[in-house]
């Protein structure tokens, strides 16, 4: 008879073996990143503002119902016919018109800024998705297969990065008629802008994905998977892609603000979504003519600033959380 065997769980938990297991409990990359992100209050503030803006964009009609007016409705009775300026002080800011009125037509600025968030975020998100899809697919192909495929795709990326983007975008956006590809009106313009912005920006994601794939390809776990008989599609989708998610997430978050600025620029130049649909860039372009009404420029401009800043803060925080080397 040997020493009595204690079968109660208590003893096992107390054993040095169990304690050791608890101490080295593995944390996934996502958990580590989340732990870092939780302590980064600036990034969290950015995230909260981003969520708020998405909320505003989705529920724009509801918000405008509560605190504003129809964004397309003219209120010319409140416009001074001589100066074309709103009659009230400070651009007609009142409880009815939180951000005042537009000069000339007297449309409610608050509603237009709120509705502007829709176009801005919709285009920025869709364009980012397009860039990420093209960039990830081509970047992975280039990085994984190497050789002449890599050379071809890498050269293509260089060409895209060295393109005079804005002038090309203006040319394309300006050349497409009001009716094309079976689409008209806002749908056509949104689709067009998503295509232009998304298509020209994929190399930024593509380069990062290519570089990551190149280094991941040589790692032991890929060799292990291959020696276990995994085929190429399995390795690409089940071994490489999960490891690429973090950089893709970080850089697409950082691509969104630049896409917002791009969309606003095209709208400002008059080749974006057409009036009367409200866009932030379009409002700023109207504001150029009414320099005596500062509120007209300030509200849409601040909307762009706050949105882009929030995405930048959140994106920077995300990058720092996933990549400890870039700690500030």
């Amino acid at each position: 008879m040997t020493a009595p065997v204690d079968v109660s769980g208590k003893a096992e938990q107390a054993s040095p073996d169990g304690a050791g297991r608890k101490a080295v409990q593995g944390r996934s990359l996502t958990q580590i990143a989340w732990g870092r992100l939780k302590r980064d209050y600036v990034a969290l503030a950015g995230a909260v503002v981003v969520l708020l803006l998405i909320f505003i964009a989705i529920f724009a009609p509801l918000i405008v119902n509560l605190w504003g007016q129809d964004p397309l409705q003219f209120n010319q009775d409140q416009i001074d016919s001589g100066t074309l300026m709103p009659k009230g002080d400070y651009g007609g800011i009142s409880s009815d018109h939180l951000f005042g009125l537009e000069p000339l037509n007297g449309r409610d600025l608050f509603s237009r800024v709120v509705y502007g968030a829709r176009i801005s975020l919709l285009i920025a998100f869709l364009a980012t998705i397009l860039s990420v899809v093209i960039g990830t697919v081509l970047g992975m192909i280039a990085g994984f297969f190497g050789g002449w495929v890599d050379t071809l795709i890498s050269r293509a990326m260089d060409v895209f990065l060295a393109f005079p983007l804005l002038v090309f975008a203006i040319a394309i956006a300006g050349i497409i008629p009001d009716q094309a590809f079976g689409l008209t009106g806002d749908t056509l313009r949104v689709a067009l802008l998503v295509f232009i912005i998304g298509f020209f920006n994929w190399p930024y994601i593509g380069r990062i994905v290519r570089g990551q794939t190149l280094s991941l390809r040589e790692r032991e776990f890929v060799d292990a998977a291959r020696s276990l008989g995994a085929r190429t599609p399995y390795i690409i989708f089940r071994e490489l892609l999960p490891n690429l998610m973090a950089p893709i997430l970080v850089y697409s978050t950082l691509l969104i603000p630049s896409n917002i600025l791009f969309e606003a620029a095209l709208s400002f130049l008059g080749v974006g979504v057409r009036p009367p649909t409200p866009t932030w860039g379009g409002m700023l372009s109207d504001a150029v003519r009414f320099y005596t009404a500062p509120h007209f420029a300030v509200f849409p401009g601040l909307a762009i600033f706050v949105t882009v800043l929030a995405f930048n803060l959140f994106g920077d925080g995300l990058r720092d959380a996933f990549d400890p080397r870039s700690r500030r």
Partner: protein
Amino acid sequence: MVTYLIRRLIGAVIMLLIVSMATFAIFFLVPQIAGATPEGMASRYVGRTASAEDAKIAADRLGFNDPLVVQYGRFIKGIVAGAEFDYGPGVEQCPPPCLGYSFITRQPVWPDLLDRLPVTLSLAVGAAVLWLIIGLSTGVISALRRGSVFDRAAMTLALAGVSLPIFFTGLISLLVFSYGNPFAVFAQGGHYTPITENPGEWAYNLILPWITLAFLFAAQYARLTRAGMLETMGEDYIRTARAKGLIERTVVVKHGMRGALTPIVTIFGLDFGLLVGGAVLTESTYSLPGLGKYAIDAITNNDLPKVMGVTLLSAFFVVFANLIVDLLYAVVDPRVRLS
């Protein structure tokens, strides 16, 4: 070095060819995909009042019915050797380099571009000097004094700078410094005086656009420089340099900055090339009669050949700037020549 030079030159020529194809595709292929007929495209040349018959003849004579390859060949030939547009009732001459012929103003585009170029160039050079000085020095100081009040303040300002669109800061700057009562000290937009005529007035008219544009880029460059400096100063060779007993100044300037600033040269080349090819947003905001404003006005008037001219010219500047940067890089960083 010679092999490197030749390789780069060939690369630049290929790049120009690709860009010319892309431009051709935008102006001749995309309208067709979007549903324009050859007659419809020819009617831009003969005017909207022309009969359908005339448009058909013009489409034939201008070659809109030819295969795309033939059309592209003619397009390239026009750039190199000049072109003639025979649209039926008459023939228009477009001497080389024919980057487009406006059938609205009945003028080749090239002389217009030459007219507008000094404006854009003045804007770009002035702003570039400002943003390089401010951006780089801010970035270096921030990196060396990481976490200091200066660093925090500069980086907050820089983050704001990269989040502000230039057409907003530009508009605000005009509101405050040109139209605002107490500080209306700078020129209102829309004026340009050639430097050869009156250098003082030239600078006075451009100072606000310079500052606004430089602020945007300085913010970007400060961020880039700081990141680059932080990375370089953590390298082993910096420790080696310190261990050798070099004074801190030499370590920072000769070892740190040289490593950190070379990548920024590349980015600067691209940015500057892009800007010379049309600072579209700045010029529209301040109504400066440069290349970008020319393109935007042309889009509004549906005068596509003018837009095509600007597109080709700006593509040329970008490719050219890239080439210069590559060559400079090879001089600064000997490793490049070997690879």
